């Protein structure tokens, strides 16, 4: 929906994501503020953005395979674990530099994901979701029982270094994580507008019709899983080098469910929706963290530390409410808002 009086005169204008000088100005301004943020922002906010950005990368991958290609996956946490462990093993056992381990862990996770996505060639919907849950448990089991992943003890990957400069604090890692997130967002936003992205959408909307139109279902489904798990692997690698401790406790089924919940709340089939969903859940979690000690003080029967359990309740209720009242997620609300803003004073 264009504002009144704005006309596209050629194909380039029609397809542009950033259309006006106001868009460019606000984009550049936001980038400047984002990159200067660690200089004036508090440590708390910086680490919050770090973790949120890592979730954004993982959920972007999930958006591509679930939101665009329609193959629901509950395995994103396990694929993130594959990335995290690949990166840790490469840097600690083989002395590979972080800058090489980062893309490599994405590729390894993507390859594992493409194998794990193989059931999608025969089953879909709920059956595929159960298959990905099974893959999750098999992968985590492997992580716990292989020699090279340090089994129950986990691994301690080093902080990344660049020419003698060590990225050893959250403020320094901020620059790596946010830059990678911006690149991944740029790629995802453009991927879904290409031939590949249109093929994904066709598979989601009607796979039989898509196949009749000449889309190779096998190739594109596996490609969707590869790309999605590539994103998960990158997120896992960043996570490993941010926290510098990796163990299987960090990648449970609940984490995978949380990613799916972020996707539902943000809205399936929308790249901005990923940001809405991740921020919604992360802020909800922080609110619960702040309010739970107060509640625990007021109601002693809640126990001394009800934060984890109350976070689950709040998350589950939020997802149910969105499923009932706004199944298309916050992204849809945002589109409605934009449309009515642009058409003002006319009614939408």
């Amino acid at each position, binding site marked *: 929906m264009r504002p009144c009086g704005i006309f596209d005169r050629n194909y380039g204008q029609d397809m542009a994501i950033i259309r006006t000088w106001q868009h460019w100005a606000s984009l550049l301004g936001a980038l400047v503020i984002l990159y200067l943020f660690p200089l004036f922002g508090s440590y708390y906010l910086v680490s919050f953005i770090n973790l949120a950005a890592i979730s954004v990368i993982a959920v972007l991958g999930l958006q591509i395979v679930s939101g665009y290609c329609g193959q629901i996956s509950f395995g994103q946490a396990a694929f993130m674990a594959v990335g995290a462990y690949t990166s840790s093993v490469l840097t600690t056992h083989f002395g590979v530099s972080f800058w090489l381990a980062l893309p490599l862990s994405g590729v390894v996770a993507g390859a594992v994901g493409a194998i794990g996505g193989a059931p999608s060639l025969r089953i879909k919907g709920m059956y595929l979701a159960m298959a990905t849950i*099974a893959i999750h448990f098999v992968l985590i089991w492997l992580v716990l029982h292989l020699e090279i992943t340090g089994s129950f003890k986990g691994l301690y990957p080093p902080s990344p270094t660049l020419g003698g400069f060590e990225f050893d604090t959250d403020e320094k890692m901020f620059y790596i994580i946010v830059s990678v997130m911006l690149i991944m967002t740029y790629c995802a936003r453009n991927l879904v507008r290409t031939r590949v992205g249109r093929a994904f959408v066709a598979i989601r909307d009607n796979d039989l019709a898509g196949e009749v139109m000449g889309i190779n279902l096998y190739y594109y489904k596996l490609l969707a899983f590869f790309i999605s798990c590539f994103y998960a692997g990158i997120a896992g690698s960043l996570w490993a080098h941010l926290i510098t401790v990796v163990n299987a406790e960090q990648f449970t089924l609940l984490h995978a469910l949380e990613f799916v919940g972020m996707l539902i709340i943000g809205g399936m089939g929308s790249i901005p929706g990923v940001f809405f969903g991740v921020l919604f859940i992360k802020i909800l979690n922080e609110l619960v963290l702040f309010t739970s000690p107060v509640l625990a003080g007021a109601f002693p029967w809640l126990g001394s530390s009800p934060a984890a359990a109350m976070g689950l309740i709040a998350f589950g*209720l939020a997802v149910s409410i969105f499923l009932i009242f706004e*199944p298309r997620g916050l992204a849809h609300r945002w589109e409605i808002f934009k449309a009515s803003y642009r058409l003002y004073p006319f009614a939408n």
Partner: protein
Amino acid sequence: MLEFLQQAITGLMIGSLYSLVAAGIVLVYKSTHVVSLAHGQLVAFGALFFWFFFGSFGWPLWASLIPAFILTAAIGLLIERLALRPLIGQPLFAAFLMTFAVFITLEGIFVLYLKGETRALPAFLPEGNIALGGLSVPVNQMVSFLVAVLLFIALSLVFKFTKVGLGMRATAEDHRLAQGTGITVRKIFSYVWVLSGLVATVAGIAIAGVMDIYYMLPYIGINGLIVAICGGLDSLSGAFVVGLLLGVVENVGAGYLDPLVGGGVKDVVSYIVLLMVLLVRPYGLFGLTRIERI
């Protein structure tokens, strides 16, 4: 050979618990075509409510069974009313995602209540072992096995011979046709969830008889789902047979493979079985071949 038989029998006993959990999932799927992730929570709450009256208040066995059944059935009814009824008319996959949201909400309440502790029921099933040749079977596991058998027979009879069961089968076939013949589909949905709550309580109590109530208990719902899917989601007999089989495979596999790979085979065997079944026969071993193939 004796060792193998012993492990197989222990597996059968564990497998009967899986079948009990799967029974509720099959029940819901058969009538509403909703696959319930939340069933494990119903099982856990059934066990918890029973512990509440039997273990905590010290009520007699028969008296604590009644409120446990009523409360768990009430949770089932609430799930149907508050979470799933607003989604009628939406794609079935939305209902599946809703049961996942319900799972997480109930998980939160369960964890909030348990606070990381375990609750052990006082022994209410007869103790001791029955010796069969060289094999020994614990009596309490034997009892839960028999309960599973009886429950499956009862459920099959309900489906086959009662009017409500007929309504459920009709609803599963086609909502509009069922409505046209005078069956209130919404009422049937409520009945189904209440019934699944009751079945979950049976499963929960049987499970609590052989293991403690702790924070991982709801995840037995995932084992139940595996059994239900492998058996074919709409087949009660499939759920029963596959549950027993899975128990045996898990136990025997763990017994023979654990020394080779260093332990923990039990945790992963069922998932590998599920993946293989999904790849070879996605509609399950006993299910109707109605699933859409790609």
